[in-house]
Structure formats: C-alpha cells, structure tokens
C-alpha cells in the first residue's frame, strides 16, 4: 500500500512537471512565433517603405492621427534616360476570414492587382489601445490600429502589434516599431 501510494505521488509529480513543461514550451513557442512574425513583418514593411518616394506617401497623416494604410510608389531606376516610377503599392491592415491581416498589394483595386498576406496575426488595435477616442497607451496617438503609420518629417513611423493565442488560451502580444526614412 505504501509503495503504491509513493508510486502514485511520484507519477503525479512527474505528470504535473511534464504538464507544466509542456505548457511553458507551448507558451514559449507562441511567444517566439509572435516575435518572429512581428519582426519579419516589420522588416518587410520597412524595406518596402524605405524605397518609397516621399511625395507619393499621400495618405499618411501626422500624430495624433495615424493610418493603417500606406500607398506609395518606388523607383525602378533609369529607363531611356528617365527615372522610372514603379507601380502603385499599398500596405494595409484589413479584416478577412476573421483575421486582422497585414497585406501588401501592387496595383491595388485594379485587374492587375497582385496581393500578398504578410501576417494574419496582427492585433485590431495597438497594444494597450482601445477604441474610445483617448490615447490609452500614452504614445501620442489616438485609437491607433494594430498596424499604423505616422508621418514624421521625411520619415514614417511604423508600429505593429502581433497577437497570438497560446495553447492555454492566453493572448500573447508583441509590439515593435521602426522609423523609416524614405530614400527617394
């Protein structure tokens, strides 16, 4: 009887340790995925915006307003002695299939549109922000979305929050920002 009790105790402890480890591992995996998603997406956005012509960022407001959508063109180099501008591009935060997606599109709203989803796990609002007309997270912006762009002189401030649900149902959020100076 004593042996069985001790065995049960040991097995119970082992089970609990394994369960906690598994949960921690799952949680860490989700955190890692959220961080990776955020960094990769922000890098892609930054690389797209860095080559944009400043004059074409026509829908980018200044703080405290922000926009979840950026329209721009990039240079394609010289052609026949003239500088060639590329096709219009758009980076936007949209709702589709129940996800808040960050999408990049070339020739948006046309028949020749090319589209790519850069992440499906963006948050609806930036971390700490809710839709109430106030600056809840104290970053100087009001009701900013999970992806938002703010014009700062010749630069564009890009902020992104990625939100993922871990195995135990908790929301893991990661927020990154980059300040990109347009080269053209």
């Amino acid at each position, binding site marked *: 009887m004593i042996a069985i009790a001790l065995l049960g105790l*040991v*097995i119970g402890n*082992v089970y609990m340790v*394994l369960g906690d*480890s*598994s949960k921690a*591992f799952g949680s*860490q*995996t989700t955190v*890692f995925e959220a*961080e*990776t998603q955020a*960094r*990769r997406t922000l*890098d892609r956005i930054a*690389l797209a915006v*860095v*080559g944009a012509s400043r004059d074409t960022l026509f829908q980018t407001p200044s703080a405290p307003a922000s926009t979840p959508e950026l329209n721009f063109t*990039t*240079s*394609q*180099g*010289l052609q026949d*002695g003239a*500088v060639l501008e590329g096709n219009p591009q758009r980076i936007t935060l949209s709702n589709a299939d129940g996800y808040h997606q960050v999408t990049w599109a070339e020739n948006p709203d046309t028949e020749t549109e090319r589209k790519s989803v850069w992440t499906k796990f963006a948050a609806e609002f930036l971390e700490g922000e809710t839709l109430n007309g106030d600056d809840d997270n104290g970053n100087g912006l009001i009701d900013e979305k999970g992806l938002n762009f703010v014009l700062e002189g010749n630069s564009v401030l890009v902020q992104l929050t990625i939100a993922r649900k871990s195995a135990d149902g908790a929301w893991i959020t990661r927020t990154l920002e980059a300040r990109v100076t347009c*080269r*053209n």
Partner: protein
Amino acid sequence: MAIRRMRAGVKSRSDRRNQSGTAIVAALVVVTVVSVLSMAYLQLSMSKNREQRSSVDAKRAFYIAEAGLAEAYAGLVAGKSGNVGNGTIPARFANGAFWVESVDEGDGRRTLTSTGMCGTGRSALSVVVENVPEPVGALGVFGDQGLFVGEGVLIDGYDSRRGTYGSQHPVVVGGGGGGGGGLLGGVGGLVGGLAGSEEGPAESRVGCNADIVLPGGLAATHIDGDAQPGPGSSVLRGLGVTITGTTAPRTKSAELPVLDVPSLPLAGDIDHSTVRTPLVLSPQESSFGALRVRAGASAVIVGPAKLVFGSLQLDLNATLTIDATNGPVDLYVSDYLNMAAGSTYNSTSHDPTGVSLLIAASQSIDRNRDGIPEPPARIQSSGTFYGSVYAPAAALTLPSQLELFGAVAAKQLTIGNGAKLHFDRALCAPQNGDGALPQMLCWRLVELPDVPLVQMRLDPLSVMELNGITPTVSKDAHYDNGDDPLAGVVGVVLRVIQGSK
C-alpha cells in the same frame, strides 16, 4: 515444512526477480520525456537565436551596402570612377564587406550598385546619381567662340573665402620686369611672402571653346594659372606672354547655359539726369523698361535686389554703384547694355559672389539711327567691380580701366590692353543649391548579384580568410576612371571550405 519454506523462498526470489527493473522502466520513460522536452526547448532556443542572428545580419548587410554607396559617392566627388572593390575581392568595412559597381549611363548620369555582406546577410542597393555642372562662375575668364587677351593684361586668382585679394598676393617692392607693372616683375622682387594666407594664392582659370589669342607685346601679359582653349584648338601667343598653368586643350567644350530672364513686376522706365541727387534703387524685385543715367548723374542699387532692365545705359561721367552689403544684387539686361567711356561702374561690397551682371541681350541694332548698328552689350566704364559678368549671347570687351574681381564669361570675350582681372575661386563653390556635387536621382533595392561570395551565404570575411584573400580597407579600394575592377581577379575561384562559418 521444509518444502513449504523452500517453496516460499523460491517464490520470494521469483517475485523479486519479476519486480526488478520496473523502476528503471519508469525512470527511463520520465528521463526520455524530459530529454525530449529539453531537446525541443533547445531546438526552439537555437531556432530563435538563428532567426535573430539572421535578422541582425540582414540589417547589417543593408547598412554596409548603404555605406558602400556613400563610399562610392565620395569617390565620384574626388574624381574616381565610383567602382569600389569587386565581387571576388570586396572592400572590407566594419565586420562585413561590400563592393560597388559604377556604370556610366551617359548625360552625366551614373548608376552605383552596392552589395553589402555581413555574416549570412546580403543586401544590394542601387542609386542613380547625376553630375550637376559647375556654376558658370567656375569657368573663370571664358569666351565661348573666341577669347582675345590684349597686351599687358594681368589675370590671376584669389579666394575671397580666405581673405582679401591683397592678403593673398605678395607685396611688391621695386619690381622687376617692365610694362605690366611691378607685380609682374618676377619672384625676385617679392618681399614678405603670403601674408595672411597659409596656402599659395589661388590660380586663375582662363578658357575658351575655340582658340585663345594673346598677341603679347612690349608690356608683359601674365596669366597666373591655366589657359585652356577648346578641343582641338590652340593658345596663340606672342612675345612677353607668361602662362604659369597648362595650355592643353579642354577635353570637351563648355556649354554656356541660356540666360533665363525672370518675369518681375513692371516698374516703368527711369531716366535719371539730376546731378546733385543720386538715384537710389532699393526694390527687392522689379523690372524696368529702361534705366538711363545721364552725364554726371549717379545711381545706387542697394541689395538685396533682383532687377531686370530692358536697357541699361550709363552716359559719359555717369556713375552706377552696386551696394551688396546687405544682400546679393542680380542685374539682368534683356536688350541693350551701354556703359559709355568715361562712366564709372563700382561695387561697394568686396564679395564677388554677391553681385551678378547678367546680359541676355544678343541683337546688334542701330539705336541712334546713325546707320551703324550698336552691339548688344558694351562696357567701357572704369572702376573696380566685384562680381561676375555673364553674356552668353553677346560679344563683350572689358576695358583696361575696369578692374574686375570675380569672373566673366561671354560669347566672345576681348580683354583690353592693360586690364586686370582677378578670378575669385569662391565662385566655383555651389551657390543657391546649384552645385558641382553629384545629385541623387533615385534609390532602390535590387536583386542580389550571382556571385559565389553572395550565393554561398557564409561569412564573407571567413571565406576570404580561408582562401588566403585579404580584403582592402574600403577607403583604399577605389578604382580610377578607366580602370577595370575585374582585372587581376579573373580566374580567382573561391573555395568553400567545410566548417567555415
């Protein structure tokens, strides 16, 4: 009894034998599960680490590529080709490497493509830069279709940014040679050295798109600096002419840009004849049909001002003074300029960059109905003028009585006997955003080149070290114009050595 005991003993040993090992199985299971979890966690950590390192490398490669563009740009400014390093032996920079390819696109444009590498990160960027022509003032003393330099003329240079003309030119005691004044007497007569100047005096620039004619004569003619005729043309000089710099023809003709006369608010005509009271013009921007300063009268134009005159005439003994003390003065003459002999043309400021006389006039017309057409521009004034004179469509003669500090360029330029021209090299510097530095037209990300060092995605410095290649420091990796960056590296094959990071 003994048998029962014996059986019990056998059973007990048998049970113990059956039970032995059950604990180790359980322990093994637990250890295995923990090991699997540990391995998974380790994998996750390593994966996270790799991901972060890869991200950092990519960013570093991007910035190294940008540094490459900056290095190539600096090379272009210094007269290099813009090529820095090459795909086999790139230039070393920080903990990475880059190389820049420079392609001449014609029309003064050049594409610079920089490939940056750091660790496993790779990035390729491209910019198109355009050479902006030097300011017209940088031409110095220039004639488009011809340049005639009379006897006893002195043309030298200085730099108003370093001080006055006097502070950059030696004091002359006595004097040596005859004719042209003591300053031309040779170094034997120099005393005191270069007061107020650590460097030597700046040289002048004399140029033409055709022949430069210097007949010389009894009075020595001295050009302290270069005198460069147009491509295929010559410097035709007689006795007593000294040119200290090169007389080699220019490699290509210089284009005199067409003068764009601005449209300014019209303010009517002015005919000033009151001798006692000088006419003071101080509007910032105005256009006049005509300004005539009659004999004995005087006019002062106070800067900052941009004025357009249909015709500008100074009669005998009339005086026109330009006061650019408080701001630049730009005078445009669209139809006719006549500064009669005996008139005086002066400027109060000693900064040549602040005054411009821009003559767009081009037609010879008989204005006084004597049957002889008057040239579009005639300067016969005396005085000391600090500024630049530009007449791309008119022949111009500078009289001996007018001493010019600055620059002059005309369609045809004649410098009268005994005239003194002092070219100010400050006029070569970019002004009002119009400079000689290449301007960037566009910037973009481009595809990575198909080069082994790029494709193998290994640390470039390690690969080069393992192959016995020592990359050059970026500042020493520039190529001159005409040099082939790939000469000397053809046949060099990079070996990928196992274990290289």
